[in-house]
C-alpha cells in the first residue's frame, strides 16, 4: 500500500502556476486526495489491473519540448487544432485560424470563463484518486465552447503529446473541457500520442446542453511503454445526443473510465470502444452509464482484439434510476482472442430500478468463426489471409462509423498494420 506521496508522482507539480479562478476546485481536489491511495487489486474495480509497475516507476513532470506532429495532422482540422506537449500548450503546432466566429477553442490557462464548468462533473468528492490528482495539479489543457445553435463546420482537433525527455520517465495531466450550448453541433477529435515511458493521466469533461449534438472521437496511440489513465465525464441535457468512440491502440497499460449521465429526458448516447492489444499490453475499460430520466437511449458496443500475452478488461455498468421509464439501453462486449495466452475479463452490470424499460446486454469471447473463414477460403484466400481479413474487419467495422475521413483512413492503416492485413491496403 503506497500513499500518493510515496508513489513519487508529483511533488514537483505542486509548484506549477495556477490561475486564481481554478483555486476552489483545485483545493477541494487536493483535500479529497488526502487519504486517497493508489488502488490495489483488492479493490473490486481494480481486481484485474495491477498497478505494481506504475508504483515502481519514478516519474518526473514532463516539460515542454519541440515535437513534430506532421503525421498527426488532420486536413479537416487544419485551422482548428490545439496541441499540448507534456501538459504544456504548444503555440507553434497549434492553429485556430479557421475557428468559426463565436466558437471558443483555447488553452484553459487563459480561459477564466471556464472556471464555472471546470470540475462540475469530475467533482472532487465523487472522483477517484487519478481524477482528483488531475484536478488538483494539472498545468494546462483545452477549453472548447460552442454557443447556442451554432453548427461547427470544421472538425476540432485536440492533440495531447506525451514525450519522454532523457532517461527519466515523465508524467503529464492533460485536461479537456467541452461545452455545447443549446442546439449546437460539433465533431471533435481528442487524441493522445507519444514516445517513450510516460504517464498520462487525463480528465475530460463534456457538457451537452439541450438538443445539442457532439460526435467525439477519442484516440489513444501512446508509446508501447506508456501508462495511460483517462477519465471521461459527460452530462447530457434534454434531447441531447452524444456519440463517443474510444479507440485504444497504444500504451502498455491503459485505463478508460467513461462516466456518462443522461441527466434529462429524450437523450441519446452512443458509447463505443475498441482496444487492439498484443504482447504484454493491458487495456481496462470501466464504464458507467447513468439513466436518470425517462426516454433515454443508450447504445454501447465495446470490442477488443487480444493477441500475445495481452489482457483486456471490460466492466460496463448501466444504471437505470427509479423514474427513468422508457429507457432503452443496449450493451455489447465482443472480444476476439487470437492467442492461447491472451486473456479477456468482461463483466456487464445492469442495475435497473424502473419497471418500464428495455435493456439488453451481451458478452462474447471467442476465436474467429470457422464458417466465416471457410467462406473466405472458398473464394481463394489462404487461411492466414482470411484470418487477417476477418480480424481487420472485426475492428474496421467500428472505424467505419468515424465521420472524419482522414482519421478513419489513418486508423484503418494502423489496424491493417497491426493485423498483418496489408494485403488489403486499398481498403483504406
Amino acid at each position, binding site marked *: 500500500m503506497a500513499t500518493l506521496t510515496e508513489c513519487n508522482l508529483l511533488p514537483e507539480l505542486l509548484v506549477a502556476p495556477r490561475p486564481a479562478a481554478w483555486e476552489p476546485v483545485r483545493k477541494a481536489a487536493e483535500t479529497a486526495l488526502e487519504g486517497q491511495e493508489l488502488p490495489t487489486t483488492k479493490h473490486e474495480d481494480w481486481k484485474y489491473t495491477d498497478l505494481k509497475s506504475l508504483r515502481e516507476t519514478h516519474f518526473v513532470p514532463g516539460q515542454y519540448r519541440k515535437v513534430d506532429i506532421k503525421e498527426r495532422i488532420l486536413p479537416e482540422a487544419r485551422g482548428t487544432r490545439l496541441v499540448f506537449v507534456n501538459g504544456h500548450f504548444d503555440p507553434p503546432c497549434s492553429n485556430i485560424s479557421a475557428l468559426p466566429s463565436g466558437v471558443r477553442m483555447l488553452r484553459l490557462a487563459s480561459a477564466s470563463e471556464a472556471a464555472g464548468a471546470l470540475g462540475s462533473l469530475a467533482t472532487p468528492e465523487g472522483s477517484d484518486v487519478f481524477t482528483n490528482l488531475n484536478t488538483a495539479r494539472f498545468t494546462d489543457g483545452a477549453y472548447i465552447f460552442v454557443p447556442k445553435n451554432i453548427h461547427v463546420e470544421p472538425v476540432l482537433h485536440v492533440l495531447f503529446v506525451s514525450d519522454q525527455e532523457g532517461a527519466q520517465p515523465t508524467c503529464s495531466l492533460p485536461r479537456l473541457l467541452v461545452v455545447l450550448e443549446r442546439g449546437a453541433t460539433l465533431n471533435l477529435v481528442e487524441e493522445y500520442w507519444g514516445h517513450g515511458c510516460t504517464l498520462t493521466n487525463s480528465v475530460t469533461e463534456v457538457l451537452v446542453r439541450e438538443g445539442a449534438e457532439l460526435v467525439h472521437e477519442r484516440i489513444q496511440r501512446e508509446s508501447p511503454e506508456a501508462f495511460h489513465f483517462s477519465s471521461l465525464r459527460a452530462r447530457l441535457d434534454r434531447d441531447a445526443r452524444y456519440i463517443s468512440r474510444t479507440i485504444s491502440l497504444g500504451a502498455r497499460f491503459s485505463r478508460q473510465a467513461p462516466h456518462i449521465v443522461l441527466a434529462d429526458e429524450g437523450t441519446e448516447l452512443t458509447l463505443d470502444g475498441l482496444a487492439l492489444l498484443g504482447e504484454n499490453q493491458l487495456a481496462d475499460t470501466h464504464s458507467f452509464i447513468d439513466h436518470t430520466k425517462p426516454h433515454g437511449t443508450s447504445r454501447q458496443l465495446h470490442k477488443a482484439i487480444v493477441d500475445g500475452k495481452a489482457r483486456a478488461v471490460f466492466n460496463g455498468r448501466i444504471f437505470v434510476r427509479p423514474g427513468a421509464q422508457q429507457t432503452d439501453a443496449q450493451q455489447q462486449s465482443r472480444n476476439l482472442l487470437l492467442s492461447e495466452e491472451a486473456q479477456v475479463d468482461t463483466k456487464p452490470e445492469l442495475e435497473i430500478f424502473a419497471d418500464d424499460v428495455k435493456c439488453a446486454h451481451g458478452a462474447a469471447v471467442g476465436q474467429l468463426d*470457422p*464458417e*466465416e473463414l*471457410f*467462406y*473466405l*477460403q*472458398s*473464394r*481463394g*484466400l*489462404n*487461411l492466414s*489471409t*482470411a484470418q487477417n*481479413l*476477418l480480424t*481487420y*474487419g*472485426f*475492428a*474496421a*467495422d*467500428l*472505424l*467505419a462509423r468515424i465521420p472524419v475521413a482522414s482519421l478513419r483512413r489513418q486508423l484503418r492503416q494502423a489496424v491493417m498494420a497491426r493485423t498483418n492485413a496489408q*494485403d*488489403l491496403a*486499398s*481498403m483504406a
Partner: protein
Amino acid sequence: MLSIRNLSAAINGNEVLRGINLEIKAGEVHALMGPNGSGKSTLGKVLAGHPTYKVTGGEVIFQGKDLFEMEPDERARAGVFLGFQHPIEVPGVSNASFLRLAYNKKAEAEGRDELDPLEFDDFIQEKIKVVKMDAAFLDRSLNEGFSGGEKKRNEILQMSVLEPTLAILDELDSGLDIDAMRVLGEAVNHQKSPKRALLLITHFPRILETVHPDQVHVLSSGRIVKSGGMELAMELEERGYDWLKAEAVGRG
C-alpha cells in the same frame, strides 16, 4: 472435368453421403435435386472443402487432380466455386475490396496480371450490370445487412469475377422472388461456356426453367436414386419426392 466416385462423407460421425457417383463434363449443366436432408448441400460443401465434413470413402477427381489433396482456397484458385445457400456477412470489409483481393489471388495463381483499384473498378462496373446490382453495394461491407436476394446476387457477382471452371450453386433460388430468380438465372446463363460446368443444387424445379440442365439427378438419403433430363424435374414438380423414397425403399 469432375468425376465423383463412390463418395461418402460424414458430419459428427453421421454418414450423410453414402456412395455418390457423378460425372460432369465441361460445358454441361447438371441439376442436383432432392428433399430436405437428402445430402445435396453437403455434397457442395464437401466439394468445396468445408472443414466440418469428413470424407469417409471414395474420391473426387477434378481436371485430373485429386480434389481432396487440396485446401479449400487451393480448390478455389484451381477453379472450383461454391455459391453459398447462406452467404456469410463480413462487417468492416468492403465488398469491392474483397472482390478485388479474391480476383487478384486467383490472377496471381494463374500468372496473370493483378488489377489495381482503378482497373478493377472498370472491370467490376461491367460485371454488376449483368447481375443488375446497384453500384452502392460495392462500397458496403461484404453481405452485411444485405437481404437474402441481395446476398444471392452478390454470390453470382463473385462467380462472374472469379470465372470458375466448375460452379456449384447451392439453393440459388431460395429466398428469391420470381423476378430476382429470372435475373440471376439469366446471369448464370450468361456465364455458360464450353469450358465451364455448372452444378445447380435445388429443391424446387423452377430455376431450371431459366437455367436448362443437361442432366437432372435426384438425391435421397445420401445416394443418387434417379437421373434423367428435364422431364424428371417436371415429374418432381408434379409428384413431389415421396414416390422416389418409396421406390428406393422398395429397391433396397
